[in-house]
């Protein structure tokens, strides 16, 4: 998975031991392990926690990647799209 902040990097970035305490605005990518309508268990770089799906406006299933803000999934991430975006940026620089 290639999105945004790998967790260890993030820990260094905000200079904390426990990753969970200070991240407010930064979205963290997480993989859904299991879910129902309103909540999901996700894997965030090896640690599991429950998140809310109250603010997710798309269907998600086990195995999907979501962006998590303060314990809420806000969007489904598509790893293939990340590659495409990078290509688009590189093309843009070639114009």
């Amino acid at each position, binding site marked *: *998975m*290639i*999105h*945004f*902040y*790998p967790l260890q*990097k993030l820990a260094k*970035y*905000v*200079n*904390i031991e426990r990753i*969970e*305490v*200070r*991240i*407010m*605005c*930064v*979205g963290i990518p997480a993989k859904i392990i299991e879910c129902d309508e309103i909540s999901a268990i996700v894997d965030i*770089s090896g640690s599991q926690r429950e*998140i*809310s799906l*109250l*603010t*997710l*406006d798309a269907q998600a299933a086990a195995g999907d990647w979501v*962006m998590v*803000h*303060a*314990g*809420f999934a*806000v*969007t489904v*991430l*598509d790893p293939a*799209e*990340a*590659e*495409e*975006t*990078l290509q*688009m*940026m*590189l093309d*843009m*620089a*070639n114009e």
Partner: protein
Amino acid sequence: MNNIFSNIDAVKHMTAAISREADPERAYRIMEVCGTHTMSIARYGIASLLPANISLVSGPGCPVCVTSQADIDNSIDLAYGAARKLDSGAVQITTFGDMLRVTGSDGRSLYNAKAERNNVHIIYSPLDTLSLAKDNPDKHYVFMAVGFETTTPMAAGLVHTAAQQGISNISVLSMCKTMPAAFDLLLADPNAKIDGFLCPGNVSIITGSSIYEPIVAAKKAAAIVGFEPMDILSGVLEIIRQINKNDYHVANTYTRAASSDGNKKAQALTNKIFEPCDARWRGLGWLKGSGMAIRYEYMDYDAISLYNLNTRREEQPTQCRCGDILRGYIAPSACPLFGKACTPMTAVGPCMVSSEGACAAYYKYRI
């Protein structure tokens, strides 16, 4: 985990394009609105990759930094049981860790309250408040809600869920804010002299791109970008092109997460619980309709009315220059206290306390 958006070859390719296209005859002042961008830019040394005539200026997008002194004082009073109508001892605070060390006018902080009274709990998600409240029905939990469009839905989610589950020993002290009024202020400010804005991707996931239309209507460039070096650099290139061609539109290089409509479900949740109100910003003053107040129907969850807090209380002037920094007037190093009286361990102002504050970023990465 390999991060393609910080790939060094890609970054070189992009900075070469920027150097090629930036007109050496003119200066470009680009504001990164969001604190997370400020941190990324400092951390990756992005400013040093750009030609000298492109400057990146920090903006008012760190929620802890823009929280007014009055709101901070109210939070600390609440933690110390000084607010009116308070059964002292029963009040418990839940908060994001960033708020902990911001000092009140009397020099105390939530961190002091945590040490002295053990009633401040650091949480990751507002929903963590629910389990605390369920386990301790004799105590009342107040969640300190700071944040922009990105984080307000999560505070709304807490109130919504508490109401649904009939949990009554929870309330929210809303210091939530919205970006548009701050953009209007910066656009109208002749001293800020901003040519283009790097717009926060995380906010855009929720709001979509329409909130940035006033920027381009005022003939300034705008690009919605993510938080990796390639995201930021592609935004800079986009902004330079818009300026060079005198053709302004809201560009989006963060399509992998943010759509043009945003997240309707999150917007609906926010609007169900909150309504706009006037809000006081540190450094920017009162901005009309820029705050989020809990709706009348959910009054039982509103700490401001529950504890009769005065959001208009007077503020003491301090030497801290956070206000000028948030408006883009000065860089943190221009503050006389920076790195001397004010360091992350002895922070005077919130811009040094918050992990996303401009002063903290400048200090940590020695800019």
